């Protein structure tokens, strides 16, 4: 288990200060007419290399939408996203390419492919990226070792506990060496003790690899361990240190 000291390591110097991802004026609306919902109403943010950011806010405030838009899962209606200073939001193909290399996801429901073993799940992003088999094998085993699941590599997701599944998902998010991990309530489906372990693993792994982490969470403890808290309410960032009570 990682120590507090690890977490206290200052952001890596090479990346520090430079934005991995920057967004300005993000807007997203669902539905149309009277039933339309504005999920994002003009969000500006900047994620610097290696920093850990918690996005908090009440249910339905647009947190997941923000994460989806930042990660290129859903297009924004308006606004700009740039990765390493390159504006990607206007060109879907480039966005997809850059995103795939730079940004990975951890989902609340783990998002593992049920038919694939733990190692095959971890390998999947490398398969998609066309990485040669030998290198895939080495990298995925290393990533599984990082989350302590090498001996579970041949197991299917359904044979694993929730905590183990999320650790596989974390390994999968780490394996392409991303610059940014987007995590949507990564402990939401776990009990308290497991949730803490998984959160710990996620934060230490990100820190060790100097990878930025943006996580949506309800958990005040998770917020406390972040470098920064973004507070989202009704589609806008209200301030950066929201008091939940």
């Amino acid at each position, binding site marked *: 288990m990682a120590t507090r000291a690890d977490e206290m390591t200052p952001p890596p110097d090479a990346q520090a200060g430079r934005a991995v991802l920057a967004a300005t004026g993000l807007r997203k609306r669902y539905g149309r007419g009277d039933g339309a919902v504005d999920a994002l109403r003009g969000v500006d943010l900047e994620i610097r290399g290696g920093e850990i950011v918690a996005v908090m806010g009440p249910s339905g405030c647009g947190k997941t939408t923000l994460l989806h838009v930042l990660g290129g899962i859903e297009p924004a209606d308006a606004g700009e996203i740039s990765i390493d200073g390159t504006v990607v939001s206007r060109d879907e193909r480039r966005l997809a390419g850059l995103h795939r290399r730079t940004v*990975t996801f951890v*989902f609340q429901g783990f*998002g593992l492919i049920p*038919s*694939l073993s733990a190692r095959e799940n971890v390998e*999947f*992003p490398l*398969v*998609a990226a066309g990485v040669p088999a030998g290198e895939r094998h080495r990298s995925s085993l290393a990533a599984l070792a990082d989350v302590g699941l090498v001996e579970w590599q041949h197991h299917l997701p359904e044979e694993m506990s929730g905590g183990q599944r999320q650790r596989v998902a974390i390994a999968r998010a780490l394996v392409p060496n991303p610059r940014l991990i987007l995590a*949507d309530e990564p402990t939401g489906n776990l009990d308290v003790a497991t949730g803490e372990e998984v959160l710990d693993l996620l934060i230490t792994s990100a820190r060790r690899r100097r990878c930025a982490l943006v996580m949506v969470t309800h958990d005040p403890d998770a917020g406390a361990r972040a470098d920064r808290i973004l507070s989202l309410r009704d589609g806008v960032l209200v301030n950066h240190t929201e008091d939940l009570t």
Partner: protein
Amino acid sequence: MTRGVAAYTFRLLLRSPGRSLALIGGLSLGVALVVSILFFVESSSKQLTQTAIAPVPIDMVGHATVPTISQRQVVGAFRRQPGIQAVEVMDAVDFTTAARPGGAQKTPAGKLVAVDPSFFQSFDVLKVSSGAFDPNGALVTEATATRLGVKPGDTIAVSIPALAAPYQVKVTGIVDASRAQMLFLSTDPSKQGEYQVVTDMVVMDRSLFNRALRTALLGAASAQPAPNATGGAPVVDQQQLIRIDRTALPGSPAAAQTRVKTLARSLERQFTGQIKITNNLGDALGSAKGDALTAKILFIFLGLPGVALAVFLARYAGELYGEAQRREIGLLRARGASSRQVLGIAGLAAGVLGVAGAAVGLGAGTLVTVLARGNNALASASAGTFIGMVPWALAAGLLMAVASSFMPAWNAARQNVIDERRRIKRVERAPFWKRAWLDVGALLAAGVVLFLLNLSGGFKPAGGEGQTLSFSFYLFLAPLLLWIGLTLLLQRLLVKVIPLFARSAAGASSGFGQVAARSMGWRANRLTSAISVVALTLSFGVSLALFTSTYNAQKRMDAHYAVGSDVRVTPALGLAQPAGLRQRLLVPGATGVTAVMRDGSAVVGSERHVVYGINAAKFGSISYLPDSFLVGESATTMLSNLRATPNGVLISRDLANTFSILVGDPVLVRLSTGGGAYKDVRLKAVGIFKQFPTSSQDSDLVMNRAFMAQARGTTAADFYLVRADGTQAGATRVANEIKPLFGSTAPAQVQDLTATLATDQSTLTSLNLSGLGSTERIFTLVIAFAGFGIFLLSAIAERAKEFSTMRAIGAAPSQLRRLLAIEGGSIMVFGLLLSVPVGFIIARVLVTLLTSIFSLPVSGVSVSLSPLLILFAVSAGGLLVALVLTAQALPRLSLGTTLREE
């Protein structure tokens, strides 16, 4: 049922049109198949009726049973009867002989008939071939003219027992009476009900007959002591020849027969005790009746697997919406709906869908029928046909709606509501058939049926032409049971085999191939359904194609057997044949001719048997003699054995069994030498046959023609077999070349392959199965296409989250399409591969059942490649289209929605 339930149901159906239409589509497919089959049954039935009555020249014949009846009165009454098209009277008198006055040549006994001039327009049984029908003279048949050497203008004297002196009349023309066999019932009590073949006839005008002969004959008759008391014919046989309106007859032979019988009875009733009607049409329809029933059941059983597939498909389509349905039912129950209300909604919905599916299916079935068999496929259909199909369509639609729509709802309603809302993965219990081992049971049952069939000695090859078949219809259960058993067994095995296969495939591949293999192993259940739908649908098509090609091959083989070769030429009996006939028969197109001698009254032991004499050197190359006709030896060997043994004889298996004759045994045969004389010959059995193409009916013994000619002291051949090129067209060409060789002076019967195929139609062999084949080919394609498409769409729908996750973790849309293509492609390939053995097994069993229809035993499945290749090409094309279309749906997945956590 409350108004609330009804209102909810109708809103459900109307406001989720996609779902309703998908289900109606699935249901209507099944209904359409039923309807198409019914159309085919209907038109086949009609075809059987038509072919049964086509050769009947005179529909009914009335015979006066009292001499004093007024023909005019009877004809008048008959003509007024609705449904009667024409009535002609004919008076007939037996004559003992006819001759030229003072001439030496005499005819055998014959008939003198008197008709009105209108007779020749009403019926075409008598045709004036030269000269004219004159009110003051008479026509004679070609045979009579030839025998007596008379021509128009000559006078002949006709000896009639009741007259003191022969009646002299002037010949004014020659009449072709070859179609007149049905005019006279045999007077021989031992041949009751059979027709009397009369070659010598004198035909005169009734006005002349009435003037010159009637009074004398009737006077003589009354002078004789009660000529009718013993049942013999009156001196003057007063007949009414009746033609009915055949277009008004119902399509089915049974209904037509009933109609005709009723008509005959109502005619008889008008002259009770004075007129007896011989119902030729009714008799012909009677023999078609059994065939029609057999055909009907055959087609229904051929189509049933298709209907079962359609049900499966409808159910499959229903499952696409299973999730939405379960959610709605959960919501209904959360809102306080009782189980009865939920079931009421499900039942009402199923009812409406079933009726709608039936209506659409009725239209679609009609459309497919027209597409497959052309516009005239419906020509025989009347409004009544459609109305008759409505209950069937409704029953099929409702049954399928219950299976596809109601049953899933019922299952959902029984489950705990909360489990639906939590979407807990349901632990699937093995389906009922699996637990009950229904697949193995069905296969065993099919085996038992086939075993019993074998045990009872199989079907006896049909002896006579036109015989009515009596089927045990449970035999048709065998292919159906086999099909069901194979279907289920296939599923049981596939579920086990697919994961194994996928595992080794995954081990052997890497990258997306591996991902696809893992995915397939994971979804073995789903994949099994999809492969089964494709494989079974195609095997249905394959088995039908094989069945049809075997039927056609068998039909041709039967025809070849009946003819003996491509063309059989039988010169008229007892007439001098043109010199060098055999050489002259070698017309252009003919590749060989051989003469065959026949002795119909030879005696073996104490029984009369038929002996054929063949030229063993040539027979093999001219006739069709497959090895399967023979016992223990090939045709070549057996014929060369016969050739090497001048007094050799081939014996039918039946005869050999009866007399315990083995090959090498001596056989004593008394050959007839004419005029009641016999000559004993000592023959040696050199072979035993099951069938021999000298005759499909009475080939008992076959010996060398030279030896037979020598023994009987005559070289005259009884018929000739002419080989063309084996095709129908070739046979027809050769037959047409041959016919003109025989003038009216020496008529001959020329029987060719085509005519045999076309006219040998009082049996089931006459049916044209190609219509059925193309109808069901369309359904094969549609069902395979729809089933595959539904599988792919549901794969995308239920894996939306998985596909979206893959996208989110780096897979490009093209990579997902590749994944889908690998899975879809595997289904296609597996389905196509499996369809061949399954289709072949089913076809083999179907063909076994055919044995009863044909004269010859069916030796195996005839594989005709082109229909199979077409089937595969078209199906593979359809599946590819489905694959491409569904792959297009992939990029439209809304990632944001599917990835949103609950």
